[in-house]
């Protein structure tokens, strides 16, 4: 991989992701804790949507002449325009981060449809999945899952699976996920296919945008990390 930004990479925040030196994310719940003098702990949290927060350290010492399109697209987005990102679909070198861990093939996964949500559980219809066998590990803990088609889909929020799910029998499976199902103004995803692994997308907006510094001949650095947060509407 070149030490300079590849002008063929996708622009905007996706370009920053694709060439990042490091990607940090957190999904913190809004929580309070107390510990009594007798050592008992009590926990209280707010039933929020738990948005994703990303901190991306951009690659240093990029070639300015190859980065002008990226800079322009970042300035266009600024802190005001949400955009969509993925980790691994556009830059396959990153796909290991979000890679699907189950045993079903893409052709089998394509036949799964979303049935209904119930809090922290999704019910998925797998009756149309061909060649499935008893004990198949459909999802492993940490798998990424998103109702609807990628990027242009009608549902915008990704989830992660919180426990290993196997298929034994029947036409449905119950998948526990990391956060409660967030209703989408675009409609209920019931009956639609899902997106898995590195194909999931996040709708994000920048909350902290670094400045650009050109130093030396044709060398560009960002002065700080990029921070963006998932947009939940």
């Amino acid at each position, binding site marked *: 991989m070149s030490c300079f930004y590849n002008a063929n990479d996708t622009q905007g925040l996706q370009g920053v992701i694709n060439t990042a030196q490091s990607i940090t994310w957190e999904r913190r719940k809004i929580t309070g804790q107390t510990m009594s003098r007798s050592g008992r702990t009590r926990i209280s949290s707010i039933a*929020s949507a738990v948005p994703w927060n990303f901190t991306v350290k951009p690659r240093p010492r990029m070639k300015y002449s190859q980065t002008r399109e990226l800079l322009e697209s970042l300035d266009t987005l600024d802190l005001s325009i949400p955009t969509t990102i993925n980790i691994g679909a556009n830059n396959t070198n990153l796909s290991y981060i979000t890679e699907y861990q189950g045993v079903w093939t893409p052709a089998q996964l394509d036949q799964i449809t979303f049935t209904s949500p119930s809090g922290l559980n999704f019910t998925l219809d797998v009756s149309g999945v061909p060649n499935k066998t008893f004990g198949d590990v459909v999802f492993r803990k940490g798998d990424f899952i998103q109702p609807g088609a990628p990027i242009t889909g009608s549902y915008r929020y990704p989830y992660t699976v919180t426990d290993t799910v196997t298929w034994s029998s029947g036409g449905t499976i119950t998948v526990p996920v990391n956060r409660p199902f967030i209703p989408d103004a675009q409609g209920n995803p019931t009956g639609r296919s899902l997106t898995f692994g590195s194909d999931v997308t996040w709708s994000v907006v920048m909350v902290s945008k670094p400045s650009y510094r050109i130093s030396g001949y044709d060398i560009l650095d960002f002065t700080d990390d990029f921070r963006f947060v998932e947009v939940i509407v």
Partner: protein
Amino acid sequence: MSTAITAVTGTVSINHCVAITLDLGPGNVFYISDAYKPITVNGNVHTELGALLNISSSQENLRAATSDIQITLSGIPGDEDYITPMLNRPIKGGLVTISRVFFDPETMLELPNQVYQRFSGVITNFAISEDSDYGQGKLTRQAQVSCSSTLSVLENKISGQRTNSADREKFFPSDVSFDRVKELQNTEFDFGREYTGGNGYGGSGRNIDYTDIEDLRRRFPF
């Protein structure tokens, strides 16, 4: 103001949200929440999830407390625009109710009948802050509603009758006994002085002027 909360026994973790009913007048009743999804509280669906920025702490005491709170709302119109009704309508006196709704932390679904009112009061003031930092390229748009508890409003209520004809006639329309209060106010009386007629007031209507020799002779004959 608040009600007892069912004991959460056998668990160390609770999950909750706040549901606010903001009544800014007819046709302007807003149902706001900080939950992850719309929730139904007392038959009203709290759909506005993108407006609530902060609620100040509220005091609860064994004694009836007259606590005030501030609710900070987003000044960026989303599903609702709060600034327009605040500016265009007399929202002072609007009703505010804050409830807490509990969820099952395992399923993140609302627990049935676990809605507890935490605050009831009226709007006493509002503030709209718009801060622009052109150098940093940052804007702040907030609308803040100040609310006093119902008890605080009752304490501020003027009770009884003031000593003027207007208040008197409000309760006793034919009673004219307070009609001259306005004229009698600040009038000085020479109590004990012999009445000599004159201006019709209960006294001379003026301070005793001992430099008036005729008056002195009349008062102290020798």
